[in-house]
């Protein structure tokens, strides 16, 4: 029972990690708190559903269509909506409030569009539902593949951020936006790229989510909240912290669901989140 909770929790946490990485890169580099992030994830799920229905592809091949689409859509979103707001704010704290409000609007807009196109009920497809046995615990194959895929994408991003020139520039913009231009880094270009990369990760998260779970137009809110909880717990902009926090949250949810009551998992998430926010507002894995 303990072991199965552990495995279920890690699989759950791996999926959370991918969702949180996209949001943390958007906020860390582009400084836009994107409250419509979950809607982008669910958009990825709907798009996966469409490509599977229309072309008869499997979810893996759908990645090749959905992820570039997520990148392009977020790129456009930044250029048309976020950038004008940033220019208007002139580097003041206004951008934070404005971006929160605008992405709120975006959240309702996308929810409305999804509901109109797909109905407010559950959408989904079935794929690889056979159970896989890990140390005596049965996990659906699709869920396991999803979690492994999430970890693969997440670690690829992590290495890109740490080891490549592109990643170094991103980190420079994130930590010292005032100095980055001095060494020839174009802040705006990287902010746009970061926001788009976040969108691509969201879309990938949507594909993975759709592999093992049906979804509704309003599910995005839960995804956003969960991703927010994770990135704040992990320390905003801290990729390794986000991954650790995601795994922790997955374990906690699986634990509460197994040992206390499945109806309390969401409440437990929020309670932990509120506690972390009060105890260490800068996150568990941030020094200082």
């Amino acid at each position, binding site marked *: 029972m303990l072991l199965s909770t552990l495995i279920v929790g890690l699989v759950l946490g791996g999926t959370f990690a991918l969702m949180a990485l996209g949001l943390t890169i958007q*906020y860390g580099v582009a400084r836009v*708190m994107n409250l419509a992030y979950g809607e982008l994830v669910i958009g990825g799920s709907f798009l996966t559903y469409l490509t599977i229905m229309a072309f008869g592809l499997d979810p893996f091949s759908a990645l090749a269509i959905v992820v570039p689409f997520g990148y392009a859509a977020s790129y456009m979103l930044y250029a048309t*909506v976020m950038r*004008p*707001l940033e220019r*208007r704010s002139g580097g003041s*704290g*206004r951008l*934070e*409030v*404005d971006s*929160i*409000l*605008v992405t*709120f*609007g*975006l*959240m*309702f*807009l*996308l*929810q*409305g*569009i999804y*509901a*109109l196109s797909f109905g407010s009920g559950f959408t989904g497809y079935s794929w690889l539902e056979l159970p896989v046995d890990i140390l005596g615990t049965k996990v659906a194959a699709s869920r396991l593949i999803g979690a492994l895929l999430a970890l693969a994408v997440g670690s690829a991003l992590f290495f890109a951020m740490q080891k490549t020139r592109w990643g170094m520039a991103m980190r420079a913009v994130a930590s010292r936006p005032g100095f980055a231009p001095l060494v020839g880094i174009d802040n705006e270009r990287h902010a746009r790229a970061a926001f788009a990369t976040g969108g691509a990760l969201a879309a990938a998260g949507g594909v993975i989510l759709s592999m093992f779970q049906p979804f509704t137009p309003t599910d995005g809110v839960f995804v956003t*909240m969960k991703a*927010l*909880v994770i990135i*704040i717990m992990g320390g905003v902009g801290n990729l390794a912290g986000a991954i650790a926090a995601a795994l922790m949250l997955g374990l906690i949810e699986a634990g509460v669901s197994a040992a206390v*009551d499945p*109806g*309390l998992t*969401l*409440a437990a998430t*929020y*309670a932990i*989140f*509120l506690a972390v*926010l*009060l105890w260490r*507002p800068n996150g568990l894995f941030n020094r200082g």
Partner: protein
Amino acid sequence: MKDRVSPLLIVVVVAVLALVPLAVEDYGLGLAIGAMGYIALASSWALFSGPTRYISLATVAFFGFGSYTVAVLGDYLPFLLILAIAALIGLFASFVVGFATLRLAGIYFVVFSFGLAEMVRQLLTWYEVNVTGTLGRYIFVDVDGFDIYYMLLAVAVAALAIRWWIDRGRLGLAVRAIGDDEAVARHAGVDVTRVKLALFAMSSVLITLVGAIQAPRWTYVEPSIVFNPTISFLTVIMALLGGASRLWGPVFGAAPLFFLFEWLSGRFPDHYSIILGLLFIGIVFLFPEGVLARIEEFLNRVRAQRTRAAKEVPNERLA
């Protein structure tokens, strides 16, 4: 000058609003109550969030506390006593929340307040399902529409009057300093913590009262109805449309938006969410400081043009 105009304006507006229920039919009274409810909510919300610029999404948590107090006590106590208890619960909760959030600012405060409201809803749902065994509750409290309307009007007036009174005194100065730059305010000797807590408590108690007063209109409540996050979002967008930093801003934002939404939800029920989203985005782009600021800007420009025309000669001489 402003100090003498505002109270007079309040008296006139209240007198007009007090006559509304006498002039309308049942359906109209329902609309008037809805509009007045949001005017009271937006004004109470702006009491704290307007000058400090903290965006709170915990509105629905306090609103729900108020409604649930009525749902639980409705059969046992007279309504006015329940209102008093609801106000006390709101006060207590606001102190707990206030103390907890004093260190948070910006996005952290927004997310915390939203998470708080969601957590309360989840916990209450779980409690009702698992402990009391029923999800919904019936409210049979004998309060008619007229009384509800006048009580909501009283809350709205209280919010406006408190705001007006605060704006004139030292507290108002302190609050505006916090809104401009919290660190500077702290260094200038403002007791930031106490000021924020006091404002948050006042704002939250009024919001709790709105929830309690409106509860008898429902007859049936469950957590997903009275803790519906849309109430928080609508309150924010209404206050911002009018201009949260101004005394009359929330009123001017709440009334037209309420009727607009009422009309739209009847006519385009399937597109409601899309329209709400577009409105949110439009307001941020078109009215960053609210409609009232835009109007004032326009009037100033007209006035400036007129004075420039009148003083053309002296200006030239100065140059």
